[in-house]
């Protein structure tokens, strides 16, 4: 039995009543968000990571595929900022490339899977009845077998092929929980007067969902999308760590950690930088997500996720 999801609180512009000046909703949310120090810090870290991931590779003359045979397993130095691996690959170049890959995959998966859960959840919640039961039944079934296991079994279909297939795979098994939240919201929105009015006026279902339901759930969907970025990055790195995700010669933070840990007790730089950037990124993303939640809906108790 899922707990009933929170109803959304409807805010009107200027309800905060800041010295009588009427503020638009957007301004209010931005101000509330910027007041949250952790959220701003998170935004800075994610921004920094993004810039680093895409500009970083140009800062060094080494590429993640180059071997510098004069420096095997050398410690971080001015020549190799993060040191080198057993075969002389520059760890900085590797880490940047891995960060890039993990960030892209995480962002794409979060966008697609959140979109999917918004669509499926609102259809289930709005239509109710048999459609709802069937969809929720599928959701429950998909939650029984951990998606990591399914993705490992299915790895033959994306191994050695484009990493975009990995995005598809991660998306297909990452929408269930958010769709439950969306469904709960859609169920409570369905009973509101303006939705009823639209229905009785004969507005088609897809227009109601697109025009009336989704915009009214936008805040929750944005928050979910943000938090899903972290989940997606963790999912991708986990698969890659096991060797079922991003494949050599390409690298992701997961494969870097997997390769680095063999000799990492004596050569900690092999996995330390990849590990740190992974944790920092996911942490920053969750700070942003919580900041958004507080900004959109200050009255809500935090993190009612499922």
């Amino acid at each position, binding site marked *: *039995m*899922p*707990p009933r999801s929170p109803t959304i609180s409807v805010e009107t512009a200027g309800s905060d009543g800041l010295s009588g000046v009427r503020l638009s909703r957007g301004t209010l949310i931005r101000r509330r968000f910027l007041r949250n120090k952790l959220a701003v810090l998170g935004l800075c870290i994610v921004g920094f990571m993004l810039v680093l991931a895409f500009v970083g590779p140009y800062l060094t003359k080494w590429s993640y595929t180059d071997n510098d045979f004069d420096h095997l397993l050398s410690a971080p130095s001015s020549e190799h900022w993060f040191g080198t691996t057993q075969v002389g690959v520059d760890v900085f170049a590797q880490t940047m490339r891995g960060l890039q890959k993990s960030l892209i995959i995480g962002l794409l998966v979060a966008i697609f899977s959140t979109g999917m859960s918004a669509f499926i959840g609102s259809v289930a919640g709005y239509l109710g009845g048999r459609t709802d039961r069937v969809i929720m039944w599928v959701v*429950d*079934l998909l*939650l*029984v*077998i*951990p998606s*990591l*296991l*399914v993705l*490992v*079994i*299915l*790895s*033959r*279909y994306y191994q050695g092929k484009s990493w975009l297939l990995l995005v598809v795979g991660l998306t297909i098994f990452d929408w269930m929980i958010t769709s439950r939240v969306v469904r709960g919201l859609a169920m409570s929105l369905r009973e509101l007067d303006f939705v009823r009015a639209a229905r009785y006026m004969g507005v088609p279902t897809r227009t109601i969902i697109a025009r009336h339901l989704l915009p009214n759930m936008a805040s929750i969907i944005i928050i979910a999308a943000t938090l899903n970025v*972290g989940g997606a990055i*963790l999912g991708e*790195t*986990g698969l890659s*760590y*096991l060797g*079922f995700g991003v494949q050599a010669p390409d690298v992701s933070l*997961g494969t870097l*950690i*997997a390769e680095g*840990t063999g000799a*990492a*007790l004596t050569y900690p730089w092999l*996995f330390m930088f990849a*590990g740190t950037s*992974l*944790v920092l990124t*996911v*942490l920053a993303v*969750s*700070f942003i997500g919580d900041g958004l939640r507080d900004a959109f809906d200050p009255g809500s*108790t*935090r*993190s*009612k996720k*499922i």
Partner: protein
Amino acid sequence: MLGYIVRRLLNTILLVFIAASSGYLIASIALYPRGNYEAVLEPPPKYVIDEVLNRSNVNDEVPFVERYGIWLGQLVRGDFGIDLDGNEINEEFARRVTVSLRLLVVGALVGATIGVLIGVVSAVRQYKLFDRGFGLLSYFLLSTPVFLLAILLKFGGIKFNDWVGTTVFFTQGEYSAGFEGTDFEFLMNRLQHLILPTLSIALGSIAFYSRYQRNSMLDVLSSDHLRTARAKGLTKRQSLFRHGLRVAISPMATFFAYGFGLLMAGAVFTETIYGRFGMGNWFVTAVAKNDINAVSAVVTFTAVLVLLSGFLADIILVVLDPRVRTR
């Protein structure tokens, strides 16, 4: 009440069958055992390959429905079939299942209990040092993937051993090979092997449960019935434990069920990193070997674990919350 339990149990058993069958279906489609024999430099003749595949009932030239029928018939009798090397899967299963269960059950219990406790205390001392400290810590833990946590704990354990000068934490296997000693010493040796892997999968759950328990407890703390309890003369502590905790804990029961699935995913990493030959480790090797029957066995095990804990969670919910019973 009894009727409810029986209905839930039947539903659970049905779902286990559906989940196990889906696992078998996915494994049969995605894994290609014939490839193991065809990819070698000098492939054996086709009839030899067919013989090997038929023995395990994984021949892709036999219609899927037929293979599935045989597999299901075996499963109902509690038989997972034969792996590609010709060994009984049940034997391997029996060897590995206790290894994993020890890790998972201890991990789940430790994670849930400590997590709930921390959550309760955090809520009662909202915005105090304890709350803020554990809040930040749980953010970190939730952002750290299990494999990284397991690796860090392993290195931490090794460093600690070096520092103390004696081996306190073992980081490889179930127990020291060739260990001689009394039963108690043997148990201690097993525990020393179990601590770090358990922490690796439990720390994430502790963080997870503590956050949710804190929220749920905060909702309860400001509720009317708790004020009434105080008003009729109970002390703060009494009202909390008799009336507050019971309500605040019940939502956790639902998370407990799904939590087991996450733990199993964590066990895949932890068992590999700590060299424990349990179900998670078996899963990875079986997929790499294209062993459909072994993969299905692990998936079935996971489904049973998740659904059984879901069933237990529902029972606990009914015991804790009388309102559910009337539904």
